């Protein structure tokens, strides 16, 4: 009866992505439940970003099917996927470089939530309202007039997330949201991701090399290697999985990670 509640929001079935003869994504199966945060780790070149490109329609799958909220989106383009409620960030500091922060977000809040057949001559109230909310939520209000290329690194990262949020997604894909940030800055982004989930169950997939971030935020972790999934499960299991330790973490990092996981388990999420 209550099947729909357990139906995954996103489902990848037998997904391949070839670049020439190389399978950057190799027969991947993945389910993401409504409201969960899935963390994806794995060495450089494992195919994580390529998987996001495939899901978000930027670079369509060579084979397999992807369904989002019960609809087949395998062949949909990025614009359609955005309008369907799936939003992503890019690994490299991607913004509209010459536009002020506010206009960056206005673009997303006006064109993102639904198809605009023919634009009006002004951004409508709804887009302005969403933009105000997102700016406030991501603590970018003081930066709204700054041209994106002149932003400090933390605010650039926040802008990328803000712009993705402004399309009103139900599923958010974050590609290395804290890459290049220092410890304090990582805390800021971590607190933001936690706030995002407080009220309504926003579903998130995040790729991250910073294991502390990945472990602290994810309900479930997947590790990719050579385009395939080599681990799927709770973060606690990562350090006990010999393959993950061998190909990704290494012995030293695995021990440090064990520490971090311990801390997480004992102190919980009281930071938020």
């Amino acid at each position, binding site marked *: 009866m209550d099947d729909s509640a357990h139906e995954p929001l996103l489902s990848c079935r037998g997904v391949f992505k070839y670049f020439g003869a190389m399978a950057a994504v190799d027969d991947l199966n993945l389910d993401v439940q409504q409201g969960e945060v899935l963390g994806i780790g794995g060495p450089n070149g494992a195919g994580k970003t390529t998987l996001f490109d495939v899901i978000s329609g930027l670079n369509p799958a060579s084979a397999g099917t992807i369904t989002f909220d019960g609809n087949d989106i395998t062949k949909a383009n990025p614009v359609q996927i955005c309008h369907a409620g799936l939003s992503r960030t890019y690994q490299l500091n991607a913004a509209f470089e010459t536009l002020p922060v506010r206009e960056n977000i206005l673009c997303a809040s006006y064109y993102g939530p639904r198809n605009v057949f023919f634009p009006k001559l002004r951004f409508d109230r709804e887009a302005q309202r969403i933009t105000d909310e*997102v700016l406030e939520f991501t603590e970018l209000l003081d930066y709204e007039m700054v041209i994106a290329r002149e932003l400090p690194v933390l605010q650039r990262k926040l802008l990328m997330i803000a*712009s993705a949020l402004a399309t009103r997604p139900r599923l958010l894909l974050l590609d290395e949201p804290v890459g290049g940030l220092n410890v304090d800055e990582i805390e800021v982004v971590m607190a933001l991701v936690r706030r995002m989930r407080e009220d309504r169950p926003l579903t998130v997939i995040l790729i991250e090399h910073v294991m502390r971030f990945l472990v602290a935020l994810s309900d479930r972790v997947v590790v990719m290697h050579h385009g395939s999934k080599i681990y799927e499960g709770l973060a606690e299991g990562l350090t006990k999985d010999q393959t993950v330790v061998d190909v990704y973490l290494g012995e030293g990092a695995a021990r440090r990670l064990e520490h971090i996981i311990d801390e997480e388990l004992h102190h919980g999420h009281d930071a938020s």
Partner: protein
Amino acid sequence: MTIPSTPAHGSSGAYAAARRQDLRLDLAIGFALLAIAVIIPILSPGKYILGQFTLFFIWACVVTQWNLVFGVAGVYSLAQMAVFFLGGYAAAMLGFYLEISIWYGAWVGAVFAVFVSVVIGAATLRLQGPYVLLLTLAIAVVIQALVQSDVNCFFYEGKICYPLTGGPRGLMKFGDLGFRDWLAYKQAPLGTYYLGLLLLVINTIFAFVIIKSPFGSAFRALRDNQPLASSRGIARVKYQILVFALSGFFTGLMGSVYAGHFRTIGPALLDLDLLLFLFSMLVVGGLGSRWGPIIGCIIIMVANELMKDLGEWRMIAFGAITVAFIVLLREGVVGVIQSVWRGYIVPRVPWLSDVRRSGLAE
């Protein structure tokens, strides 16, 4: 997601204030320039100067529309003069063969130019950056070659043979704007002067509204980062075609006005010299900026007058100026003025510095 409700103090205040400030500045600059332009003929500067001003109005319109495609949307099209030429040619052909007044033909020319512009925009869809330059330049060269090599007799007037398009000499005797018949002989240049001015005003308002609207934001977003724009719901194909269509209209209309003003139109309009001349206006003024085309047009036309005696060297000078700006002053004269304003004037004038003015994108 907990999104707090909009704060009472209205966070969009600073941005909205900056927009209002920009609008006031635009109106001030616009009215000042307009007042000067309205007064100039009263000082009876002579036929030559009036003619140069009329030409300035036409080129300023063409460069303003070009800026939408090249500067705002970042699609490096060099086919602007081809659109201008074909719009004007359509009106001239209608005048020549069907004796339709240029006043009506101009609208057909404008609509035809929209069509041509959209086709060119569609042809460049799969290309990026420098390849767009190559393709669009090739289109212009091919159109010029086609008209120039058209020497087959289409009809005879007495013993003289006329090709369909007029061939290398182009078209003549297709009528004009008629100011000579309506106004005294001496007053006729005033007719085209004020018509040109009126069209420049309308054309500038049109371009400014587009630049400031969500259209402009979509064009700039695609220019800055196409994959990101598509992931935020902005479809490249749609907006690229749209910007070509929007800019094509006034470009074609001005082509017809050019034909009506000079009472001749020919393939020489597609010469590289002229393209470079207009391109230097675009670059010197500031790509993508609102006032860039008009300011660039003023600077280059004045420079052109000053360098009259240089002959062939003029084109080399314009080439050098263009390259210098592209390499050293990417943002053009408008960019320089803006950084002086923000970096030097605003911090030193107390009543300005409390207006947080870091400026908008254009």
